[in-house]
């Protein structure tokens, strides 16, 4: 296959992202973690692929390599998408402003509740898939989606010595905001009660 004009060989079953990486081509990611199952949530690694005259946009962390595939990792369309995604994330996670500047975003046009979390779910997934502790979970749907600690599991003390999610968090929210073992005020019960309060 061909990535950004470079002929690349990759094993069947590998993703475009993995193939690009081994060829020294950098595709930016936010929710990707090689230890975890592909998630396809941030869509930041979107690339343009063509085969047989057809062009599509796919996320490279999920799409598997194919013979004869032509991949553009930074076409104008791809850059446009990444810029918009970053600008959208910036509204709730201003901590991304350094990265945004690299994409030429100086003055964000959007506003949202600042959570400093982009819901990449690395903490949730790592805790479930690798640690198998399930101390973190998503709560809520759509714009109300949040990451929260499961009170009952955290209460058993599993988080005290682990803290492996600290290093995973791309916005640094977890190490910055956790007090002791888990987010202050970001337990499931707190998220739910806040939501209830908002509804009232």
């Amino acid at each position, binding site marked *: 296959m061909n990535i950004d004009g470079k002929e690349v060989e990759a094993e069947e079953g590998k993703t475009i992202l993995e193939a690009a990486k081994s060829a020294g081509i950098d595709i930016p990611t936010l929710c990707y973690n090689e230890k975890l199952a592909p998630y396809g949530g941030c869509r930041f690694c979107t690339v343009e692929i063509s085969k047989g005259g057809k062009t599509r946009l796919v996320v490279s962390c*999920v799409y598997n390599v194919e013979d004869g595939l032509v991949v553009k990792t930074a076409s104008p369309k791809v850059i446009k998408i990444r810029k*918009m995604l970053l600008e959208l994330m910036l509204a709730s996670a201003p901590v991304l402003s350094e990265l945004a500047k690299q994409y030429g975003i100086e003055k964000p046009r959007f506003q949202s509740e600042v959570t400093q979390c982009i819901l990449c779910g690395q903490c949730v997934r790592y805790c479930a898939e690798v640690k198998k502790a399930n101390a973190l979970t998503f709560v809520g*749907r*759509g714009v109300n989606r949040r990451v929260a600690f499961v009170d009952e599991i955290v209460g058993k003390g599993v988080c005290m010595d682990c803290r492996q999610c600290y290093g995973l968090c791309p916005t640094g929210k977890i190490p910055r905001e956790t007090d002791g073992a888990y987010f202050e005020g970001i337990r499931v019960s707190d998220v739910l009660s806040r939501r209830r309060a908002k509804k009232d």
Partner: protein
Amino acid sequence: MAKLRSPADLEKKRQQILSQRDPNKTCVTICSGTGCHVLGSDKVSEAFLGEISKNGLKGKVDIRRTGCHGFCERGPVVVIFPEGICYLGVKPADVPDVVSKTLVDKQLVERLLYQDSTGKTIAHEGDIPFYKFQSRIVFGNNTRIDPKSIDDYIALGGYSALAKALFKMSPEQVLDEVKKSNLRGRGGGGFPAGVKWETTRDAPGDIKYVIVNADEGDPGAFMDRSLLEGNPHSVLEGLIIGAYAIGSHEGFIYVRQEYPLAVENASIALEQARKYGLLGKNILGSGFDFDVKIHRGAGAFVSGESSALMTAIEGKVGEPRPKYIRTAVSGVWERPSNLNNVETWATVPLIINRGADWFTSIGTKGSKGTKIFSLVGKVNNTGLVEVPMGMALRDIIYKIGGGIRQGKKFKAVQTGGPSGGCLPENLIDLPVDFDELTKVGSMMGSGGMIVMDEDTCMVDVAKYFLNFLSDESCGKCVPCRAGIEQMVEILNRICAGQGRPGDIELLEEICEVTRDASLCALGQTAPNPVLSTVQYFRDEYKAHIEQKRCPAGVCKALVSFYIQPDKCQACQICLKDCPVQAISGAKNIVHIIDQAKCTKCGTCFEVCPQRFSAVVKISGEPVPAAPPAGIEVIRKKGKQE
């Protein structure tokens, strides 16, 4: 009862049922679909039972409670067979008249009949324009069967298509017939069902699943619900035939818990079919095994998406999967899983019985057969309608729907639910088929059709649908979650009179990324309500942003109410009805609205007698200064209060 062990057994059973039924015996069918149920069909049914025994007709008249007839606007609907006399809006108090006049004296109760615009009454269901212009091949049997009775379904030829498929056709032949019919998925995408079946059939693996998608979640749509409630066996028969063609032995009906009657009737249907040997091991003695489980969905719009639905069946949170592999190849527990919508499955027995050639004779080049629509909104005859593909929107809205309410002007029709688009008046002659709707920026979707009149603000409509989607997005991927959030934000500020220059372009910019980068179809189609209204009603957006004017007078922040002092007759109606006491005045003293207190609820506008029409709605221009308090009413000569 003993299980049916062969097609001959089934035929014998049918004859036995028919022999016990006199086709000329009077049968009162009472629609008990959701619409009529809400309008009180239970009480009507009780009244019939009472009156019939009071008149000594017990045993001489059958009563059948059926599923939805479709004419929800005029419910409760009662149809009396064999004549097919249709009574609309029947109340328990009408029942004694119906029984004594129609059942005993064989006369019509004129006041309950349909009346056309000239005042002429129409007695027979089939002659009423609402029904006359429809082709109710899938939905029509709803009026003839009690959904809780498998015998009713068998009496009408039910399960004969299954017998034909199992005994006279190979699985390949069934598949070929469905492929030849070019049946396209009725759930939204319009993907050819036969091709999907073949993918699942050919996919490696011994265990394969077939699934009914009854997770209908579009605002204003209720066709799948009414079909599953009203004729569950037709859906089940289609599913078994599909399973046979695909080589599946296990199926699911994914139905939302909010549809309790659909869950109940489908459960009863499964039980009955098992008892009759039409489901389970060795169906009809053919050696083919197949059974079905009902999975009750927790009611998330996104769970109608195929991979989310399958994840939900696995017992996990119903979120779409990011994979690029089709669920037809890797679905429930990563096994090949074929998902079709309720209506698609219900169409299958018809195709097997009557053949693909018959089916392809109905419809357009690319879209065959009929489609059921929920015709709702500002149309006179709301309800469920089934029309051949290719019928013009105009015919559906005017001939069947009876035109716009209160003689108002048509403005737009929204098709395809939250993922669809709004089509303006110049497209009203568009033939309704999968490809034509997509071409103009909307979609067939599962068949929602919301008619809008001149009093509808298109920016407000876009806001409504995007708000719905912002709650219903699963929130997993950024372009959908955050993209929709920001679109709602911008639409909110436009409607609030805070729109900025460049907002339309910004909306389009977000739309493009949300469409191109979202993980699943919910996000990919979420921009449609915005894009189609921007495309066809851009001036309306501009009026909101540039002139702070809402042309339809809907957006509260851009509307004011004003009482014209020269027209006010001081009748005190608005004064009394105003919920916030914002209106001052007295008898003979012109009323005045205190703009600072007014919450713009519009009550004064609605209650002001039409002959005065003193209250006006103002948008985009300053409200005239209030007249000095205490002016006396100017009365027109010769008119007394």
